[in-house]
């Protein structure tokens, strides 16, 4: 296409302004516009005259939401943050509170249930026979190398204070594995320097309140 004569340029700019150009010619014309200020001026003349077609229109108020939408488009960093959804916020807060509660409860239980003393009871030949963990209100007994026991016999556990008589803590569970509950007074007995001992007794334990058979295992309580 010849863009050289003034008339031709004016006519082509007019075609472009009103939209008579097919898409390919349109693109070519836009390329020319970039480097040709005179052609841009020619087009602007047409645009100005054609814009007068819009003059008779009466101004139309625009709903406020249009402005809000524009602001959110040009300030994406400020307004594109998704709106807080109350339900999820509530759920998240609830979850945090629940986990805190669980953590505190578990922590308390764990603290309450903490092992306070330990003892490894040895046989006469210094072989470890039993391990005992003293919790606040019970003892956890674990057999290591326990001698076989006749059917008519029991093993009884004693606490021997530094300057006192042995106090029964109860029978070792059959097989040596299990828990022995502690009464308040038994709990108060336990402490450092207390020695634990296991004696061989008739089934059901000593009837005298003191060890009546040989001591098979013994060892001191150690604080952790």
């Amino acid at each position, binding site marked *: 296409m010849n863009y050289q004569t003034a008339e031709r340029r004016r006519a082509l700019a007019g075609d472009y302004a*009103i939209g008579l150009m097919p898409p390919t010619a349109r693109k070519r014309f836009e390329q020319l516009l970039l480097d040709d200020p005179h052609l841009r001026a020619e087009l602007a003349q047409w645009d100005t005259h054609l814009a007068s077609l819009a003059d*008779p229109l009466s101004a*139309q108020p625009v709903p406020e939401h249009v402005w809000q*939408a524009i602001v959110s488009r040009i300030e994406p960093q400020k307004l594109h943050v998704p709106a807080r959804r109350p339900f999820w916020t509530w759920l998240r807060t609830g979850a945090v509170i629940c986990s805190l509660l669980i953590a505190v409860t578990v922590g308390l239980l764990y603290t309450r249930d903490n092992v306070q003393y330990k003892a490894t009871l040895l046989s006469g030949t210094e072989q470890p026979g039993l391990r005992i963990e003293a919790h606040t209100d019970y003892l956890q007994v674990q057999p290591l190398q326990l001698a076989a026991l006749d059917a008519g016999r029991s093993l009884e556990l004693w606490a021997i204070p530094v300057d006192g008589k042995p106090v029964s803590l109860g029978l070792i569970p059959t097989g040596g594995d299990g828990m022995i509950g502690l009464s308040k007074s038994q709990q108060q007995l336990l402490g450092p320097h207390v020695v634990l001992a296991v004696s061989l007794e008739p089934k059901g334990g000593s009837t005298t309140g003191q060890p009546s058979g040989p001591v098979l295992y013994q060892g001191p309580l150690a604080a952790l």
Partner: protein
Amino acid sequence: MPARPVGTHGKRPVNGNPAMNGITLYAQLISTDNWHGAIPSHVGRTGILTANTENLRQLLAQCSLGNRRAFETLYRSVAPSLHSVALRCMGRRDLAEEVVQESFVRIWHNASRYEAHLSAPLTWMINITRNLAIDQLRKHRELPLSDLQQNAVADDTPGADEQLDSARSSRALNHCLEQLDGMQRQTITIAYFHGFSASELATQLAAPLGTVKSSIRRGMERLRRCLES
């Protein structure tokens, strides 16, 4: 571009004539873009082009520097005008509002490209709006024209304040448009506001493509010479 008939499947035929041919469609198009119906009611009220050009020019310059406050002022002063252009093009409020939104996003980002020595700020902005509207219309072209007409702002009621200058400019425009023949007015207006290509217009008007093109070109020349005189 293949010429697509527009309005041939209109759900609400304007003339009550379901068997539309080129002639009834022509009548339909005239009813959309009837200058004689439109202009007299506008004489004597504020035309949208009567804006403070110098003020708008400064606001645009501020926008190109990233001044958000200037942008808001610009929006408040020209959004109603651009909305009226968008409505004239789209014929539907929801679509027109989208076009207004898109226009201002573009104005904000392209403010530095405005060439003040070439055209008035409002002319530049109207063109942005019109081009965006036409892009949308081409995508929506399957919408029957009669639907667009139904919702078109045919009821532009005169504004409250009247301005002498605008009355004069509208009279001048009216005078110049009267220099055109019916087909010239129709083809120019429809091409300008609705983005119909010459071949689409030729189909609509059942006229040869060459006739439509030369009608538009002669009409534009006549309009320009009249407005420049």
